[in-house]
């Protein structure tokens, strides 16, 4: 009990450390904010992939819908920021409930294909319903109101680092909540479903309900990320709901490593920052990304997190080996 409590603290501390370090090493507030936004999306994807064993090609649906919901609410309803975020989460959760309810009926590759089919369908719906979504142009001129409760201004959001602060706070809170969920009984049950679905069902768990819950949480988080993204860029573009976005989120999650929440933060950070940097060097940077995916699939299935912990273990083992060596040589003195 004590060990897992400390472990939980350690990961949360890493999340906090990340939001503190980013402003120190990056000069662009927008870039730093985008890292955190996609970290949220990757967390949502990881909950499904790493913790429930479901590979969803539909995360872009929730990101896009979150963006549209936030955009429409801010443009037409003029509701305050404090209400936009939960609204996007609800929209994301409902969409996930819909997609999940149908997709969960399938397993393995069929599940993947179904989420892909839904992703394509939502894309074409968004493209066709031009009056609502703005079609190819998307929604434009989305405002970024400051954070207020009952007229009291809590946090300004106009400047890039000001907005980053807001997103950082949201990120840490969501991370903490997600960590609690993952460490709870629900979380461990999801792991049981991931490891052996038949056994979990035999043990009396309602596997479908569990998967659906995981889906809805994932949808809520990803919808939230979509809303934050819409306010970052001031637009809700069609590209957020495109298949390519779903693919990118999945790639980030796997590069980071599934199975540990903070790994998703690593994966998103890596993808956004390295992609941003590489694109200035070589227009064909997608080729390097492809090679990385191949390498991860062949050699580094645990992703960056796995590489990191592997190195750490080797250093520790080296330390221990040194200790025993010095002990042995001391014994001979």
């Amino acid at each position, binding site marked *: 009990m004590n060990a897992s409590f400390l472990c939980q603290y350690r990961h949360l501390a890493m999340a906090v450390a990340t939001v503190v*370090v980013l402003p*120190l*090493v*990056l*000069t*662009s*507030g*927008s*870039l730093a904010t*985008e890292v955190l936004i996609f970290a949220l999306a990757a967390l949502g994807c990881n909950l499904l992939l790493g913790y429930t064993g479901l590979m969803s090609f539909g995360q872009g649906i929730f990101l896009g819908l979150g963006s549209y919901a936030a955009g429409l609410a801010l443009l037409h309803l003029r509701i305050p920021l404090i209400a936009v975020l939960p609204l996007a989460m609800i929209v994301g959760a409902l969409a996930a409930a819909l997609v999940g309810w149908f997709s969960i009926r399938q397993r393995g590759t069929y599940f993947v294909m179904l989420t892909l089919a839904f992703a394509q369908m939502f894309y*074409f719906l968004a*493209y*066709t319903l*031009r009056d609502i979504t703005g*079609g*190819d*142009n*998307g929604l*434009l*001129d989305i405002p970024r109101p400051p954070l207020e409760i009952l007229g009291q201004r809590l946090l300004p959001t106009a400047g*890039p680092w000001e907005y980053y602060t807001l997103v950082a706070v949201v990120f840490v809170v969501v991370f903490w909540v997600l960590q609690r969920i993952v460490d709870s009984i629900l979380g461990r049950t999801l792991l049981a479903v991931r490891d052996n679905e038949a056994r979990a069902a035999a043990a009396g768990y309602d596997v479908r309900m569990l998967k659906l819950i995981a889906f809805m949480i994932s949808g809520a988080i990803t919808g939230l990320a979509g809303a934050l*993204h819409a306010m*970052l*860029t*001031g*637009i809700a*573009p*069609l*590209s*957020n709901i495109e298949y390519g976005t779903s693919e990118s989120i999945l790639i980030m999650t796997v590069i980071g490593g599934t199975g540990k929440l903070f790994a998703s933060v690593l994966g998103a950070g890596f993808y956004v920052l390295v992609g*941003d940097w590489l*694109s*200035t060097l070589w*227009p*064909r*940077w*997608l080729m390097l990304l492809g090679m990385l995916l191949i390498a991860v699939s062949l050699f580094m299935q645990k992703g960056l997190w796995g590489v990191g912990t592997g190195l750490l273990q080797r250093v520790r083992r080296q330390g221990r080996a040194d200790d025993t060596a010095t002990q042995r040589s001391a014994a001979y003195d």
Partner: protein
Amino acid sequence: MMDRRNFLKLSAAAPLTAAFGKVLAQSDTIELVCPVPLSGPFAANGKFSEMGVRLAVENYGKLLGKRVTYTTMDTEGKPATAVRKVQEAAQQKGARFFVGGILSSEALAMSKEVDKAGGVYMTIAGADEITGSDCNRSTFRWSVPTYGIIDQTVRQVAEKFPNAKRWYTITPQYVFGEGLLHWSKEVFKAKGIEHVGNSSHSLAEKEFSGYLTNAMAAKPDVLLLLNFASQSSDTLRQAVSFGIKKNMIVVVAQSAGLEQFESLGPDICDGVYFGLQNWHGVDTPFNREFTRLANGATRSDPNFTVTSTYTCAKVVLDAIKKANSTDPKAVIAAMEGMQYEGPTGIEEIRRGDHQVIKDFYLLKGKPKAAMKNKSDYGDIVSSGKSFLPVEKTLCKMA
């Protein structure tokens, strides 16, 4: 092994040196930023845009005593990435001068972001809203919007062939395509033309045989293609394979010019009418000079994207020179009403909506045997300036 304190000191110092470096950089160069798709399905535009900006920058010499430089940023063809990178450039480097962008969705989103950052943005994208309902002080547009495109192609062909009374249209489903269709219908009404049918298709479509079959069944005199770039190429290629050229006149309202002709080849282009934003074969002082320049650097005649982006870059640089300042407000003031030698002759930036007033061309493709050189794909049939008055463009500039 560095201890934590030193590491924190170092990392705190990093942004400081970057900022310091930025200040140093600002003081002795003037930088143009070119946000275009360099990866993803629209990367061809990015490559030629970069070429255009490079030619402009490398051949400019000193400006206000400073060196002129440029950077490109990969927008990946996604408006959100484009906006975020514009934000980055404005925040990290204090970049204020942006040139390029052909995708309407990207250009619209970027124009708003540059406006927020108080910069200057000149684009070649087509969407009417850029100098229409979504116009703003920072944004300038070189390309002729939908009204002019249709007036110089559809109206001209209708007048040339007064007995061609049945027209069929193929339209892409997005605001630009719908704008073209709207103005086409206005011309049809005015000329007593029967609009025998329309096929709207998605921007992802590659298979046009169904729409062409539909078109042929309606027995039109003219097939009018309102789609753009690779889609109009696919439609045209498939149309020719169906033998459509034998039965009707084919008009491509807005062609991507030389780059499109090169990817199709003269056999497909022969006899087809193309609307063009510019044509290297037109004898203007700019074209004479620029064709020589482009051939020196790339060993081929300049295509639409290279020429137009070069023009935008040169106009912005010239405006900085004219204003004798890098303050965006002064540059914008210098650009309003500015006249200059452009690819189509004397071009002028209209004060009210920041739209460049220039010629739009109608070209008829010629057979391979008649080509005088490898870029001589057709002859200009007509040209002219057609623009809505500012009051009708829905532009309300603050």
